[in-house]
């Protein structure tokens, strides 16, 4: 009987010891500051064709990467970018027109599109490396949303043997702050 009583007493003491009332009120916590790097770098809205992570943001008309810093496109190479800011944003594209295909196609007219809207259209009369850059109207974009950025090539080079279609050689495409 003594043992039972002692055990009961011990159990009660243990139970009481366990009663740790949870706090119901708290002081203000450490105040969060805006996280540095909300807009992570000038190239955050650019898609580089040498980047192995480029595939998920390619929407269409860009051939798979082969480990070199450029990729062939088809007629309307399109990528998605996440818009971090809408003010003073420029469309930016680095691409090249291949000498041999140029001999077949002649001058190319390339349209530059943002969210399907025509930003500019340029006629390229020579082959070689090209760079295009032009401000995008702020009301074409919405912050913190995805935007599609595209080129549209008017004529395609058809490979004689395979019949594959080629537009331009793309290195980088996207938006720049």
């Amino acid at each position, binding site marked *: 009987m003594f043992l039972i009583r002692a055990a009961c007493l011990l159990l009660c003491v243990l139970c009481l010891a366990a009663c740790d009332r949870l706090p119901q*009120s708290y002081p*203000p*916590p450490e105040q969060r500051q805006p996280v540095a790097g*909300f807009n992570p770098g000038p190239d*955050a809205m650019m898609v580089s064709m040498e980047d192995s992570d480029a595939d998920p943001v390619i929407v269409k008309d860009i051939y798979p990467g082969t480990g070199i810093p450029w990729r062939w496109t088809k007629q309307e190479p399109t990528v998605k970018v996440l818009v971090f800011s809408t003010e003073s944003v420029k469309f930016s594209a680095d691409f090249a027109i291949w000498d041999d295909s140029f001999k077949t196609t002649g001058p190319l007219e390339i349209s530059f599109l943002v969210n399907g809207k025509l930003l500019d259209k340029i006629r390229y009369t020579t082959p070689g490396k090209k760079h295009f850059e032009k401000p995008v109207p702020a009301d074409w974009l919405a912050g913190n949303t995805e935007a599609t950025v595209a080129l549209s090539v008017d004529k395609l080079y058809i490979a004689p043997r395979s019949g594959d279609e080629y537009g331009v050689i793309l290195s980088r495409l996207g938006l720049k702050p």
Partner: protein
Amino acid sequence: MHVLPILFGALFTLATAWSLGMLLLRNLAPSFDAWERRLLAFIAGSACLSEIMFALSAAKLVHRGVLLAVGLASIGYAAYSGALRSPGKAFEPLGLLWRWVFIAVFAGLTWYAFFNALAPEHSSDGMAYHLSEVSIYQHAHGFPRITNDVYANLSQGIELLYLFAFDFGRHSAAALVHYAFLIALVFLVLSYGRRIGRPAVGVAGAIFTYTCPVVLRDATTAYIDVALAAVLFALFYLLQVWDESRDPKLIVPIGILAGFGYAVKYTAFLALPYAVGFVVWKLWRARKPLLGPVLVIGLSAAVMILPWMLKDWIEVANPFAPLANRVFPNPYAHISWEDEWRSYLSTYGLHSRWQIPLEATVKGGQLEGFLGPSFLLTPLALLALRFREGRQLLLAGLVLGSTYFSNVGTRFLIPVVPFISVALALAVANLPWLLLALVAANVITCWPAVYGRYCTPGAWQIYELPVKAALRLQSEDAYLSRDPDYNIVRMMGRVVPPGGRIFAIGQNGTSYLPRELLIGYRSAANEVMQDILLTPLVRDYQPALSLKFDFPAREFRKLRVVQKGSEPEDQWSMAELRIFEGPNELPRDPGWRLTAHPNPWEVQMAFDNSPVTRWRSWQPASPGMYVEVDFPRPQPASSVTVEASDEMVNTKIRLEGMGMDGQWSTVSDHPVISAHPILSSLRMAAIAELKTRGIQYVLIHPGDFGADDFLRYPAAWGLRLAGEENGTRLYRIR
């Protein structure tokens, strides 16, 4: 892992449990046949061993040496004291026909079941939490305080037996222990038939139980349902023996098993009222004293039940965790989670409960397993009501199965399978040819090579005979790598260094993961992290609304924003509460005391200046909920702004203040609402919050909400790809 340690781990556990049971029942020889005593001893001894393991785990004494000592001492003392001898009358031998029917079916299915149990364990829940918790306990040598996994708060009576076996033989040893409960159950059913003088009924009932596909599948994994069925049938059995013998010594094991039911699984909480009710009814009718037996049953059961309640009370402030969070509100499980969990488990996505009979017996796709077509004949079992034994069986089945609709998974019918099996056999016992035909039909339709023809593809079932894997002629890794979850946890194990903490919205297979993985829905804190992680992706979560209360400047002791609306489908949330004096926001004084009702534990998230965190009610919004600031001294103020997401419920608020007179009064009933859509990316802010909570890695499955966004813009999140397995990506926080 080789076969011998696995077999040793399982057999040593079984031998220890059996020895303890034989010691417990050694003075009850006259009540039992020699075999039923051995079987009941195993079940009762399992309860004792589980209790010992609870004590060892609480004391952090789960070391291999201690377990060896406990096992050897139990076996040695039982042998020394003569308790292992099993005196008592023996049943009449089975007739030739039924004996060979039983032997043939039992041997055939055991061939399948044994190798499946011995094969590397890869069941869904076994890997996700039954053995995952066991692995954590083994690593910690006992119970660590786990507040970020609701499954760790369930009672784990069988898991503690697994812990004993796991220390020697890892996962497969645990599965073999579970399988041993099925063997014990089948022979108990057989013995019951012999005890009531109907051996054919015993054989048929045992075959119905053993061939039941979901029973056989469950028993060959580290689940616990078949063990529970064995415990409950053993309880029923002991009560029947007590009813015959009125041996008062049986009351203690009856109480132990009644309590052990709860310790195995919450859904068996009715075992105690059933046992008490049975004994009280019988004693009352016999005009015998009630109080003593009832107290003994209650105390014996309490020894099994109370430790689990105390553990939960101490660890997570809720003795019934993870249930009853409305009654015992706590910071570790949200009420909304419990509501959603209960809601899902009561339907499993079925359109109507009328689908249950066919789903649970034949199809098995949505309810995760099937009993076999023979159980469509369950209504026929009502014919057994004409026998006393039939009434007892059906009463027990009805009481112990009455919790089924709280979780309509087929597994949750397993505890009543033996009762229905015997009752069904009893119903047609007077027509031996019909009984034999039923048994034959049942064996054919429930044979593993046959049921794949009619059940839903993918239904939980035994579908292979993995002899090579079981004997480890094929490596565990090769066998388990067929399981996508296993491959993902292996990838995480390779990539994440020891001590690394991973957050995932969902993931199974964690019993093979030697790292800490926090899963979104598994605790309040994890749900908060999931909420934070999704806020950049879900506009409805973002604080796009500003609700401003303007009022003539005056002094307050307290201010609070009170919910006026009642929204059964919506939760109230608040990203920030800002107080102004004139045009300037008051700096948040460390002397302020913040509280909220409900969910005071997360109130700081409405005062942290972060757009990705918010206080949420985590239950439907109702009038009277509030978020409150208590000032250390009289505080002048002239406006209050609430930032919240764009949901109607968040606008139904008023501002109350407590003035110098200590009285609450409404300061403003109509906030001015303005919209401020979030135009900047909140991704890095969200990841920064996870980082402050100790998370170093984030696991994203292809099907997770927002998976594409992580895939396309890891840099925007501040994440770097660390590993990938079949489309599931593990990101390291930069």
